[in-house]
């Protein structure tokens, strides 16, 4: 009797995707470090945290959508719209303030997300088709109405560059130069914590899990499916807006054709983190681990001797394997 309980507890820990994923991350880091000792330095880790923040924030948004049983293809278009419009407004108005940039980008994100939310929750259009449509509409409008010319580093307002170089704490290296914990990472962690809080402790969050599990059941249980779905897509819009500003601050360059087309590289960490596309199952921690794994893989491909041509192939393989594993687990559980 005690034996079976003990066994089930072990299974409980190790059935969780997160445990596997953590083990894989550790093993892979050791492998890469043994090939290239400079990989696992503190400096490099902080740098990885900085460069993955923008992707991570979008991944959190996608995670919430997948949790509700939908999918969003348009978040990259929203992020680039927010970023490019914010950069242009700042240049045109002469206001050099990063909060103003965030405000504009998030407003753009919120309104575009609201369009998605309205179409999906009111007209009940399949989420993939709706967001594929809006992806093209948003991006097309941005390129036709706002412009196609990239904002280069010289034109970009200083506040973006200053924000991109802001560290929460800085370490001076003995041989000169410095590194530190970027504010990007802090924003990413804050967004993750906020999302975790919403999902775990608010009625809204439980509603998101509920409509992901079974929309009809959630509706009959008296949940307002319309407003929950509307909230989800607005939330994704705002997160995309934040990610857009982080992205431009990191690369110091705003090209309206960037980001769009990289949807899969953001969806990949989310499904890798154990979120099921059929909805109702997944955790914020899993998503963060997924982001860590994908970032690690992308940054280390060249270190382990493969050209960057392999990146797309590996992203696809990771998505295929992780969705296969989670689908297989669902089936196994159903059979028992």
């Amino acid at each position, binding site marked *: 009797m005690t034996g079976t309980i003990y066994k089930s507890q072990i299974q409980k820990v190790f059935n969780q995707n997160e445990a596997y994923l953590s083990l894989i991350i550790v093993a892979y880091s050791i492998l890469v470090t043994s090939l290239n000792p400079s990989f696992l330095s503190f400096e490099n880790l902080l740098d990885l945290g900085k460069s993955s923040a923008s992707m991570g924030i979008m991944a959190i948004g996608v995670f919430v959508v997948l949790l509700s049983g939908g*999918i969003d293809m348009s978040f990259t278009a929203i992020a680039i719209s927010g970023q490019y419009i914010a950069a242009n407004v700042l240049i045109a108005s002469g206001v050099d303030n990063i909060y103003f940039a965030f405000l504009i980008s998030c407003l753009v994100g919120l309104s575009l997300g609201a369009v998605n939310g309205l*179409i999906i929750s009111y*007209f*009940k*259009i*399949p989420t*993939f*088709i*709706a967001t*594929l*449509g*809006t*992806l*093209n*509409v948003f*991006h*097309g*409008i941005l*390129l*036709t109405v706002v412009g*196609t010319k990239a904002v280069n580093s010289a034109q970009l307002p200083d506040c973006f560059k200053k924000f991109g170089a802001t560290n929460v704490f800085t370490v001076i290296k003995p041989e000169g130069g410095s590194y530190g914990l970027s504010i990007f990472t802090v924003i990413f962690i804050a967004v993750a914590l906020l999302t975790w809080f919403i999902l775990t402790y608010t009625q809204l969050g439980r509603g998101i899990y509920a409509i992901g599990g079974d929309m009809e059941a959630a509706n009959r249980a008296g949940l307002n499916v319309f407003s929950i779905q509307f909230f989800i897509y607005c939330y994704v819009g705002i997160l995309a807006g934040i990610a857009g500003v982080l992205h431009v601050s990191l690369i110091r360059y705003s090209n309206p054709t960037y980001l769009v087309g990289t949807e*899969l590289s953001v*969806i990949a960490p989310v*499904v890798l983190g154990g979120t099921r*596309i*059929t909805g109702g199952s997944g955790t914020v921690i899993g998503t963060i681990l997924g982001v860590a794994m994908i970032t690690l893989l992308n940054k280390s491909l060249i270190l382990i001797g493969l*050209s960057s*041509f*392999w*990146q*797309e*192939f*590996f*992203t*696809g*393989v*990771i*998505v*295929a394997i992780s*969705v*296969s594993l989670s*689908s*297989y687990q*669902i*089936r196994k559980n159903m059979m028992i």
Partner: protein
Amino acid sequence: MFNQYVKHSRTTILFFMMLGAFIIMSLFLPGKFLTLSNFQSIASQIPEFGLLAIAIMLAMLTGGIDLSIISTANLAGVGAALILTKYSLPQLGAYEESYIIFLAIVSAIGISLLCGLINGLLIAYIKVPAILATLGTMSIFSGIAIVITKGYGIQGFSEKFLYIGSGTILAIPMPMIIFIVFILLMSLILNRTSYGFNLYMLGSNPVASRFSGINNRGILVRTYILSGLCSGLASIIMISRVNSIRPGYGSAYLLQAILVCVLGGVDPSGGYGNISGLVMGIIVLQILQSGFNILSFSPFFKNVVWGLMLILVMILNFYSSRYTQKIRKKLKVD
């Protein structure tokens, strides 16, 4: 009886849309739209795009979707192009040249069938949701194409091969003839075989079809293989029409192919849709496309129009299904 009425009204609406688009384009673009060369260019673009749309439609009939069509076509095209360029030497005789072209076509179709099989196995046996399975394989297939070609294009095929894409028989472009033969074959398969019947049954209610003794898995695997075959054929026409292949070529077709399916009355949740509706949808889209080209719209603006159309059609479907439900309720009460 009632369902029959709904189905027919849908086809009628599409027919009038097609006619309307045609008349508007002829009236507003006098002397530019109604020309033989314009119709020939429309006719040469329909097949590759139409084949991709059929590929998506097949997946949609089962209630799934196939996002990997473009990358399947790319990979198959790269395979064919490698054989064509590697073995085509100037001193080759006519017989050897035909043999190499045959080999290239067979390998392109083989690759596309294999891609379809992988999708089918993932979806039918491991039960991965079709969106995610094909999103993953999309990246895998185009990733392989990129690794093989290192991102560069392959170009310069022999004259004989180019005949498939740009030759004409009695002023009808060769791709059009292939396409017409293929859609006749497809409608035969969908409407007159037990496979077709089972496919529609599976799409409208998978549980019911399973309990009535249909091998759901077999049907799914065959459907995705067939969908791969369509992409393979499209790739052969595509590479011989433009005389080159580059990974990522034709990525704009995905949105348009989904749009055409929805426009042609295919239900994305499965079970509904037929070839005749799809073909009318393709013609409407191509008429608009050629009009936009004459007006020289930018590709971004075209995407706005396609995206808006996709959403509008879905919204119209929402209202029409609500309307038919209302009528159905009324009929029941009476």
